[in-house]
């Protein structure tokens, strides 16, 4: 379904349910790769400014249907794809993505959108060189999220699915459905499963070992910056730039 990576660049993505710790891991990976002098670009799910203005209004009014929700997230992805991810991969940059097409496959199918239909919609995307799936039991993820967050948002909690009137309960049920979809995709797309309950440092060690393996013998776009830490290649800086 996804295209092979014929570009000079490397595509590394992280996936997992909310609270799986994937963002922490990719952030550490990003800094590590920068320090090592690579040209790195970071892109985050649902971060295209153009689409954001559209989705914001609809989110507020709760007017999404599972299909419009799905297409608009793909529109956001396509905007980032056409304007940054693909051109940078072609240039030989390491592109890191916090969530990728698998997020859509998991969430949209959890909303009962047709699985083949949503897979076709994202079929323009490239199969990542490494797709790291941070796996945590539902209870652990839910506890992490509810401890860190004052309140949950309507769509994030899957309230549109009418699973429960209680937002916390709805969130739990929805995340459970998403988790089931992720587990199905491990074999389908060759996701690399990482135990998200391990200490952060241990997980990062595993992550770096995997990525090191991928980058061995590979030469990407040179990074002309002498002190790359915190000053990544300006060309590789975009709206999705980390912090």
């Amino acid at each position, binding site marked *: 379904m996804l295209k092979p990576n014929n570009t000079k660049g490397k595509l590394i993505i992280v996936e997992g349910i909310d609270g799986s710790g994937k963002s922490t891991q990719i952030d550490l990976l990003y800094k590590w790769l920068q320090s090592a002098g690579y040209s790195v670009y970071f892109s985050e799910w649902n971060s295209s400014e153009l689409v954001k203005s559209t989705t914001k209004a609809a989110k507020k009014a709760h007017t999404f249907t599972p299909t419009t929700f799905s297409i*608009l997230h793909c529109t956001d992805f396509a905007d980032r*794809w056409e304007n940054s991810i693909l051109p940078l991969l072609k240039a030989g940059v390491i592109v890191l993505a916090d969530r990728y097409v698998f997020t859509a496959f998991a969430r949209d199918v959890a909303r009962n959108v047709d699985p083949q*239909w949503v897979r076709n919609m994202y079929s323009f995307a490239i199969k990542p060189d490494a797709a790291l799936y941070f796996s945590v039991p539902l209870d652990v993820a839910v506890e992490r999220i509810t401890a860190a967050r004052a309140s949950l948002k309507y769509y994030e909690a899957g309230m549109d699915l009418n699973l429960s009137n209680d937002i916390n309960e709805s969130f739990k049920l929805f995340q459970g459905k998403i988790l089931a979809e992720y587990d199905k995709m491990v074999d389908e797309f060759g996701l690399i499963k990482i135990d998200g309950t391990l200490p952060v440092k241990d997980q990062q060690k595993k992550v770096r070992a995997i990525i090191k393996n991928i980058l061995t013998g590979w030469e990407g776009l040179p990074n002309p910056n002498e002190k790359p830490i915190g000053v990544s290649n300006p060309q590789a800086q975009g709206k999705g730039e980390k912090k």
Partner: protein
Amino acid sequence: MKGPVFYGAGFPYRDIQKLPGKLIVLEGPDGVGRSTQIKLLRRWLEDEGYAVSDTGLTRSALTQDGLDAAKSGHTLGPLTMSLFYAADFADRLENLIIPALQAGFVVLSDRYFYSVIARDSIRGIDKAWARALYGIALKPDLILYMKASVDSLVTRLIHGRGLNYWEAGMDMHLADNLYDSFISYQELILKEFDELSHEYNFVTVDANRKSNAIFEDLKEPIMQLLHNRLTKGKKPY
């Protein structure tokens, strides 16, 4: 009453039992006079006692801001644009067309997704991909295609609202001026429509003629569709 028939999976999460209404699509290029015909058809059908809903491929509230921003200069790639249109289409289909059909309306749709895949296709979007994307679409009961030569479109537009940037496909850099670009662009569109008309069984109407003559030709297949219900002179109410 029939159940809904979709080109693909449709909306699996929705329980749509029956759609007593009829979906009639009017397709055709820019400047061919679709909106004039929609007005005439609407009045005629209402006189016959049908509840009519008309909806256009104008933007829904959902994507208006994004598309406006896109057209006013933000750089949107062809894929992004295509998906924006698809989101808009889905919104109209689910929130306007299907409810109207459920309520038994005759829905006159000023264009459908065929126009969108025609414009996408000449911008390099994969045809199979686009068709699968519109697997959400309901199969219309009737697709009327107002076919006109590029020359007759030019005549109508120049004496009407004029040539504009998007209708001339200026984003494709086919020519350095509106006129030449319009000609080249509409010829490409025409070719796409010929292909689509076979694939999706369009009923083609010669739209190079006066509005009244076109109107009569459009009425014919609609009468057939609504046959017993559209009376020979006798009103159903």
